């Protein structure tokens, strides 16, 4: 068949199964403006910014228009500009435009478009800044209805990708808004805190809850010792915001920056991840030989834990009792500090749900103090580095602090979907040659597909593994497991599509950027000499020093559930 193409702004663009004209145009390098379109969500067609004009002068929304061979369209005409400006003016008229004190300033689509389309005057009265427009009830996210442009991305994300449905449209016409059931605080909804709504919100209507002030206070107090652990996915998501390339692994510079910010010691959560791998692999082997239920689900994603508690309590006993790397490492660090100052432990995570995990009762010591005092997301740390006036680009690399500086590649790849599984397989494989490790990467655990499957031999047993990311994918899989349609021994679950590299606490990014981040983690893995968790001698020694009771106390957790 001949190639089929469409003519967009005079450019012949080959049609290759694009879902709409908007994607087709973007492929040709023409960025049609849009608020409500997201390639990973269903098409909504509400903002009307993406309209294009055909030869007869009539208009159509390009997000809802199928590519048609031979069709001729224009994306930037006088008429289109006029209407886009009107749409922007209307949105701005009903928007609390206090950009200078808005957490989204600088990363906001509305602000960006208002500037690009040169909107210098709004001719309608505006009384949209209202007290009480914010919902700060969640420890993970903050919602502000006075900033919402009703693009519906959050609703679609929460329902379609996460199958949570914590938020939906309420009321009609100009009273329309985004609300929880009965319009109550989000903390009382089934929200799992994944932050994916914030990751797609084009404006400041859903943002990450910021806890940086509390950390600044701790750092500023000379009677407090503040140490910090940094999750794998953080190091590959800082670059763009700090003047470097998206996806570059930047742990060395980050350690230096955190020291300059004022942290007393910096550690790598990859150390905790190696602990998790060894402990979880042992648990898995135990379960395989009859000690506990199969399939075993991984347990390091707190949004997944909360989702299971809410929607699939019948599977709770299938979830590994191993704590997440953050929560294995934290008590170890708390114990390791022998000074006489007050000890505050901070964790930097790609994740908004970790803020919630940090506050769970299960992760408090005997006196009721949390092991992790504050969880900051990548976004918050980027801002702290900027606030401190640090020229990040120019920083030298530093190593993490003793005695926990030893890490392996296995711990680093935790940050991407399939990484936990790959780490466990590296450990379980008796052959550690480069070739054997490479073979593991071809079992099918890598890649961004929502559900991946692999069968691997462990000992003489064929072990069936599934790797799933996104809670809707997870639900579909769980339902199949329940009905007996599929069987697995081990299931890795990450709530965020693609894993923690795309966590709700990471700087907002387009689809391509997410791939760079995953590549960055594999690159960081590549430079580690030690690839498998049991090669981390410090971890092995640490685990060997703990008796069963101790292990149970600080490495495992039994979720009480929230019902």
């Amino acid at each position, binding site marked *: 068949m001949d190639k089929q193409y469409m003519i967009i702004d005079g450019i012949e663009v080959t049609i290759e199964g694009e879902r709409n004209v908007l994607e087709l145009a973007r492929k040709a390098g023409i960025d049609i403006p849009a608020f409500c379109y997201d390639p990973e969500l269903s098409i909504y067609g509400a903002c*009307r910014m993406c309209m294009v004009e055909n030869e007869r002068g009539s208009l159509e929304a390009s997000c809802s228009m199928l590519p048609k061979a031979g069709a001729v369209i224009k994306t930037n005409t006088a008429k289109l500009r006029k209407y886009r400006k*009107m749409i922007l003016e209307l*949105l701005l008229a009903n928007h609390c435009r206090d950009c200078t004190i808005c957490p989204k300033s600088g990363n906001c689509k509305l602000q960006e478009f208002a500037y690009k389309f040169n909107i210098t005057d709004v001719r309608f009265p505006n009384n949209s800044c209202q007290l009480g427009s914010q919902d700060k009830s969640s420890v993970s996210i903050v919602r502000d209805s006075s900033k919402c442009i*009703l693009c519906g991305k959050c609703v679609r994300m929460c329902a379609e990708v996460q199958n949570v449905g914590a938020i939906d449209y309420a009321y009609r*016409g*100009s009273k329309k808004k985004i609300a929880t059931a009965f319009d109550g605080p989000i903390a009382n909804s089934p929200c799992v805190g994944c932050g994916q709504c914030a990751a797609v919100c084009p404006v400041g209507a859903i943002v990450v809850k910021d806890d940086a002030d509390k950390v600044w206070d701790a750092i500023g107090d000379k009677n407090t010792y503040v140490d910090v652990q940094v999750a794998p996915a953080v190091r590959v998501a800082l670059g763009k915001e700090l003047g470097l390339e998206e996806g570059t692994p930047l742990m060395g510079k980050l350690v230096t920056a955190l020291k300059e910010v004022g942290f007393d010691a910096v550690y790598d959560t990859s150390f905790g991840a190696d602990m998790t791998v060894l402990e979880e692999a042992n648990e898995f082997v135990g379960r395989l030989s009859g000690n506990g239920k199969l399939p075993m689900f991984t347990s390091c994603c707190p949004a997944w834990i909360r989702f299971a508690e809410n929607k699939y309590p019948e599977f709770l006993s299938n979830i590994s009792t191993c704590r997440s790397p953050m929560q294995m490492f934290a008590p170890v660090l708390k114990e390791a500090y022998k000074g006489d100052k007050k000890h505050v432990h901070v964790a930097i995570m790609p994740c908004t749900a970790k803020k919630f995990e940090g506050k769970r009762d299960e992760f408090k010591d005997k006196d009721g103090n949390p092991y992790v005092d504050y969880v900051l997301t990548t976004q918050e740390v980027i801002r702290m580095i900027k606030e401190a006036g640090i020229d990040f680009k120019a920083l030298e690399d530093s190593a993490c602090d003793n005695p926990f500086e030893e890490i392996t590649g296995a711990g680093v790849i935790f940050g991407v979907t399939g990484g936990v599984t790959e780490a466990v397989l590296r450990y379980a494989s008796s052959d550690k040659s480069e070739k054997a490790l490479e073979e593991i990467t071809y079992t099918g655990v890598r890649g961004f597909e929502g559900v991946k499957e692999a069968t691997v031999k462990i000992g003489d047993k064929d072990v069936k593994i599934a790797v799933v990311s996104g809670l809707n994918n997870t639900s579909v899989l769980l339902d199949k497991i329940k009905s007996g349609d599929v069987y697995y021994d081990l299931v890795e679950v990450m709530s965020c599509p693609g894993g923690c590299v795309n966590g709700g606490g990471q700087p907002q990014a387009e689809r391509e950027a997410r791939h760079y981040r995953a590549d960055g983690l594999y690159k960081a893995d590549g430079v580690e000499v030690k690839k498998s968790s049991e090669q981390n001698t410090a971890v092995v020694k640490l685990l060997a020093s703990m008796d069963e009771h101790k292990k149970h106390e600080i490495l495992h957790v039994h979720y009480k559930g929230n019902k």
Partner: protein
Amino acid sequence: MDKNTCMVEVARFFMDFTQNESCGKCVPCREGTKRMLEILNRIVEGKGKDGDIELLEELGEAISKTALCGLGKTAAGPVLSTIKYFRNEYEAHIYEKRCPANACAKLKKYVIDPELCKGCSKCARNCPVNAISGEIKKPFTIDQDKCIKCGACVSNCAFKAIKEA
């Protein structure tokens, strides 16, 4: 519809209806019809401003061309066609603060015809806001700034001396 029908009010009425019917999904219909109604409301209340007719036209065109569904695409129709055929009525409301059809309550003006007024003071006694004053047996007058256009004086005048203007 006849000469007592105010075309601006007709347009406002339709816009009020569409506003209630709008589902609120797309920006032009949700936000645009709200703004058109806001402008029409101020025009019939005598608070219309220079530029309002043009702004209505601009909004109407944008909504008609960009709204998602039939409701939105037709929402501005009554406003645009009344502006087209009865622009002078809009102008009278805005620039002269006058409703040519005498239908817009807030734009009504009551005056006492000095030829017919016997100076009985009944109207003044019945005015709830004391907007009418005068000397007995001489023509009374209405203070337009105080008058709230309730019309009580008209029905109280035995000599039909008070008229809408």
